[in-house]
């Protein structure tokens, strides 16, 4: 039977599913269950649904859930609850990677671009963690400040070259989250983040152990650095995938894991489903609000 926690989780999933259905039926074009089945307008409603609304909603769910999970893992890596990919240099590094590949090899496929962005994100985050190690007194707030500064430096370099190369507009698109342009064919890369979330869930206990610190981890027979590396890869790839497809959604990775932590603690096996559901629900909610408030225009989610 389901325990209380699982029941609550099921309710949360249902609520987010409800929001998702709502999201599918909100928009400029008239898509309602009636128009959908009334076969008039030569199936236009169905087309809008398949090409735009469903992809958009899926993109939101995947990006929201995976960015929240990335934030949670980032907090374990840095042993600090005030960091997330956008305050650790990860996002800016991914942006730099995208710029580099766009300039040097514009013909690269989206997957290729995503991989280059991942590698840059990985290096940037690694640099952040190295810098953290060199700071002897790590007060809680110094850690995110270091990350923001590092991100600022990398961001400035990126902006400088983007400006010189007349690519500021593309850069802006990467670094500001928006689901408006999501059409089928432009979001599928986000399924990779689902794979990464599944890996994170499988390795959940390792992350919980690593969260207790290096000595506890070694005592329990796990290789601390290996767990850290796995976390680094997940965070970097999720960030790169999200930046390439929908652009950055800041602070999601900060807020959602901390809310869940207050309720559920730090047992990653227990919290991961919550972080995913609340992350997805939160972005979906913001997106719907953004679309409704200034209907028929939109406010960008980021």
């Amino acid at each position, binding site marked *: 039977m389901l325990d209380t926690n699982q029941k609550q989780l099921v309710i949360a999933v249902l609520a987010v599913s409800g929001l998702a259905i709502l999201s599918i039926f909100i928009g400029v074009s008239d898509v309602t269950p009636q128009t959908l089945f009334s076969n008039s307008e030569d199936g236009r409603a169905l087309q809008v649904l398949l090409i735009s609304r469903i992809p958009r909603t899926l993109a939101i769910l995947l990006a929201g859930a995976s960015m929240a999970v990335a934030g949670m893992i980032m907090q374990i890596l840095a*042993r600090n*609850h005030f960091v997330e990919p956008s305050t650790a240099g990860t996002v800016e590094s991914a942006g730099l990677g995208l710029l580099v590949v766009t300039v040097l090899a514009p013909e690269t496929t989206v997957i290729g671009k995503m991989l280059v962005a991942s590698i840059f994100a990985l290096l940037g985050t690694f640099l952040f963690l190295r810098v953290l190690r060199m700071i002897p007194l790590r007060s809680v707030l110094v850690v995110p400040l270091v990350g923001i500064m590092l991100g600022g430096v990398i961001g400035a370099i990126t902006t400088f070259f983007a400006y010189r190369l007349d690519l500021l507009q593309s850069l802006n698109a990467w670094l500001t989250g928006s689901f408006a342009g999501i059409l089928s064919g432009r979001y599928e890369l986000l399924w990779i983040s689902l794979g990464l979330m599944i890996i994170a869930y499988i390795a*959940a*206990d*390792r992350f*919980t*152990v690593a*969260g*207790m*610190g*290096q*000595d*506890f981890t*070694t*005592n*329990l*027979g*796990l*290789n601390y650095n290996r767990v850290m590396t796995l976390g680094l890869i997940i965070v970097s790839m999720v960030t790169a995938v999200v930046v390439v497809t929908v652009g950055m959604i800041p602070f999601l990775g900060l807020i959602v894991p901390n809310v869940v*932590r207050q309720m559920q*603690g*730090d*047992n990653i*096996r227990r919290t991961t489903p919550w972080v995913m559901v609340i992350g997805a629900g939160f972005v979906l909610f913001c997106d719907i609000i953004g679309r409704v408030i200034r209907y028929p225009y939109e406010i960008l989610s980021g």
Partner: protein
Amino acid sequence: MIEIKDVSKSYDKTVVVDGVSLKIPAGGITSIIGPNGAGKSTLLALISRLLPMNSGQVLVDGLNVTTTPGDALARKLSILRQDNHIGSRLTVHDLVTFGRYPYSKGRPTIEDLKHVRMALQYLNLESMSGRFLDELSGGQRQRAFVAMVLCQDTDYVLLDEPLNNLDMKHAAAMMKLLRRTADELGKTVVLVLHDVNFASCYSDYIVAMKDGKIAYRGNPSEIIRPDIMRGIYDMDIAVQDVDGKRIAIYYA
């Protein structure tokens, strides 16, 4: 048996463990005593592969701790360090269950949960098993950590100042519990203790460290003596026999 062979550890140019060789017999309680900064914690961390050593080697039942796979060693030897600021918000029950990780790899069986229940019971934590660690007092948290390590059910249990934060009642209960673990379950318990009287009353074997070296070793009646206490702590300490135990009087 733990064999420590000519082990050294230095930070920059300061040698903190200086060519230590020592055999810790299997079974019973061995206590390491000595002044602050003598290198006790460092030695314990070297034995348990938490720190890399600069030279020498440590064998636990013949297994070299530097080369033996971590998960195999985690079923042989467990260690709790002196200061544990764990940032994680875990419940006592979850923490203790993670003591079974070397066996369960995160999927505790009924057998594993039996160990968890026993450890919670031994350390008197049943009533707070659902509480988060950050909602406990220092002493309660310390007991939860010890429960986790005991739950690991290893032949060798290394504890660095396990009586930290415990009141008299819980400190005595902890030492009795460790005595039982050694006597009834046949475990080898290695402790760092700063209260020589607990070492005197509960250990089979005492090792005294000073300046990174082993200064003295022997059973309690050989070590808890005014001349040797003076050699270790550089102060005059009277020793009296109370009910057949040697008690050092170091308050006056």
